[in-house]
């Protein structure tokens, strides 16, 4: 520590005490607690729409490529999007999820192909998924506001409340690199200040609708509206499974000591698994 080098031991001790005494009131004032749930809290949840179970996301029919629901990009972004679409069509996707970082919003709603589970507990709703090494997203329902300066994250900071029978979620605090996706091979970073609102409603005994509005003023000419329909499954075969995004990068093997280890599998530039003897050299197959 720089302090260690500059101050004698006794001075360091005094400084430490002063720092602790000075910071303690600040820490207390800035750390509101999560209260223990009461019977009334659980009763309130029991009377709300039942989101339990595992939900399969349905077709992406509300914003087919080129359809009326596609995002309206700013002109300078639209040009870049066209180039990305061209590369994808030519078999050279500029993969938006290739590095296994979390997808974040809105992809975890609009691009997701895996099951989703909502855990409703006092003060928060936890949304679990089967990607990103098992996705976890928190929606605070305890009335707290967004932080004034949230740490940017992939899924942002979400606060929610029930509006009649609809769960309304407001999210800010995204990393600017988080993509607004058109497909698994074409997406564009939100470039900052993205704001997402969602509305989740039960539309039948086992169906759910999630409407999402994405406002990204640095890349979109107007907020993008999309919707997803989910189907609920109660069968235990649908219970969420562990799903690591990186596991497929490795083969199970044994080291020289007989210990079980993972060894890397070679991949092509686009992320496809390759035969081990063709990691770097294309063969003379018919597609050259």
């Amino acid at each position, binding site marked *: 520590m720089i302090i260690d080098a500059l101050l004698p031991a006794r001075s360091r001790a005094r400084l430490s005490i002063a720092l602790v005494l000075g910071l303690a009131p600040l820490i207390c004032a800035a750390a509101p607690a999560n209260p223990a749930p009461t019977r009334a809290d659980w009763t309130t949840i029991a009377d709300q729409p039942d989101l339990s179970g595992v939900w399969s996301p349905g077709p992406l029919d509300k914003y087919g490529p080129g359809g009326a629901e596609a995002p309206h990009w700013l002109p300078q972004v639209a040009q870049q999007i066209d180039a990305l679409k061209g590369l994808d069509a030519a078999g050279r996707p500029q993969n938006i999820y290739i590095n296994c970082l979390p997808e974040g919003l809105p992809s975890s709603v609009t691009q997701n192909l895996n099951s989703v589970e909502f855990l409703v507990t006092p003060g928060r709703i936890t949304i679990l998924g089967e990607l990103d090494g098992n996705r976890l997203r928190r929606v605070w329902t305890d009335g707290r506001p967004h932080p004034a300066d949230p740490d940017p994250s992939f899924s942002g900071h979400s606060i929610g409340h029930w509006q009649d029978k609809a769960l309304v979620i407001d999210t800010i605090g995204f990393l600017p690199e988080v993509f607004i996706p058109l497909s*698994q091979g074409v997406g564009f970073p939100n470039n900052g200040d993205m704001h997402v609102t969602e509305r989740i409603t039960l539309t039948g005994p086992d169906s759910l609708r999630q409407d999402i509005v994405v406002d990204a003023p640095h890349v979109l000419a107007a907020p993008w509206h999309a919707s997803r329909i*989910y189907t609920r499954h109660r069968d235990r075969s649908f219970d969420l499974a562990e799903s690591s995004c990186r596991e*497929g990068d490795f083969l199970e093997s044994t080291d020289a000591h007989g210990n079980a280890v993972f060894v890397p599998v070679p991949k092509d530039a686009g992320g496809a698994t390759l*035969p081990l003897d063709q990691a770097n050299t294309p063969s003379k197959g018919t597609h050259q």
Partner: protein
Amino acid sequence: MTRRLRTVLALVATAALVPIAPAAQAHHSFAMFDPTKPMKFDAVVQSLQWTAPHAVLWVAAGKVDSYDPGVWSLELPTSPANLAKMGWSRNSVKAGDKVIVEINPMRDGRRAGQFKRATLTATGQVLSIGVIPGAQPPK
């Protein structure tokens, strides 16, 4: 030592001889596979790599068209979590099973492709990507 383990060790031994591509890239677009030139050929199952985000069927084949004999990586378009809901399991095939595979090959000519369907020669059973009720089907 099980046959499957021997297969994996053989694969690993091969891997030790070649440089490994540096990047780790799991979840990805399937644009590198060509759906306009589907292929169908006889092969022998090496292993079913039961991993997220894409399971991989490893098969060995003799000379196929202009492809040299060797091991093929056939990527399934989704994860074990979804495949299990479609009726697959990590034991759907086993090492040594003779199969007829149907794939969309990789555009650059390497022995890799997108798995479309496999028919078990012994029983005629067809393994294909199934559907999950109400869900958007994978590619």
